[in-house]
């Protein structure tokens, strides 16, 4: 199973607005639930998503317990130059995952 999927066009013309959708596999355990014998389940969520285009932060978001499992985040970018979009997810229990996709402009 893939840990993450980035949906965005591979090519764009200069000035185009492109949609980026990033999906990551994560249980997003809220910390408010208990298991079958009544013990509380520790919170285990993604706390932050950061997207950088060739190192420059173009989008970032804080996530909270009310967000469903396998969170999907969407945003828009104006394509100005070719480069690589890097997405980083960080969370509880040392969770960290990065994925990247190329954009060709021109």
């Amino acid at each position: 199973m893939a840990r993450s999927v980035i949906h965005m066009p591979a090519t764009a013309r200069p000035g185009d607005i492109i949609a980026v959708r990033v999906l990551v596999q994560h249980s997003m355990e809220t910390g408010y639930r208990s298991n079958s014998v009544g013990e509380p389940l520790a919170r285990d969520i993604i706390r932050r998503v950061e997207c950088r285009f060739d190192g420059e932060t173009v989008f970032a978001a804080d996530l909270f317990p009310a967000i469903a499992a396998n969170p999907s985040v969407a945003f828009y970018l104006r394509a100005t130059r070719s480069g690589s979009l890097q997405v980083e997810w960080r969370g509880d229990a040392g969770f960290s995952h990065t994925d990247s996709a190329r954009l060709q402009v021109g």
Partner: protein
Amino acid sequence: MRRVATGLALSACLASAAAQFIGTTLQRRSGFDDMSPALQAMQRDDTQNPAWLWLKGGEKTFDADCARCHTNTQLRSVATRYPAFDSLLGKPVTLSGRINLCRQRHLQREPLAAESDELIGLETWLGWQARGLPIAPPADPRLAAARSKGENLYRSKFGQLDFSCAQCHDDNAGRRLAGSTITQAHPTGYPIYRLEWQGMGSLQRRLRGCMSAVRAEPFGFGSDELTALEMFLAQRAAGMPIETPAIRP
């Protein structure tokens, strides 16, 4: 006299046709048609569908293991045909059963666990190849016995609540069970991403869920009973387009 005989033959014909399509003579509806517009939008737009996590994993497994023998165009319609008869085992097998048999016979590997991410991923990937194609259960006569066993199971009452599948999904489809619309139970989109599970599952997981809901002891994964039920459901939904990977509430 001849007219009477023709009349009898015709009515016998009609009766058997009706028996074959009980519950399907009314307009058949996929579970998709009974979902909220928001969920329908989520299924229509592949970039919003969390099933892509499993599908991409399945694609990777296919390229690594299966692509030695198969190509995806060659396997395009496979998901429309299963369960199908396996001559070595001498009984029908489901699509996930076939994947595991292929692993054991040709790759000499251990079978994948039922509902494991890897198995669901491959099944999802195969289903996605067949998306839009009509469900086409094979006309193999060796399947007839299991299919009619499936129909019997569909109409048998189960569990402490003493319900059959047909009582909800034929007799009361379209009405409501608490907050949810009762669907006609056509297996058009499996494996599905089910919001209640916050993950993906097979048709057998769904059937087992229904069995627990009527407080029956569910049949095991890969059991002949669940395979028979799958076969009857595929026959009942024959011709409906495959939606895999579908979203369900």
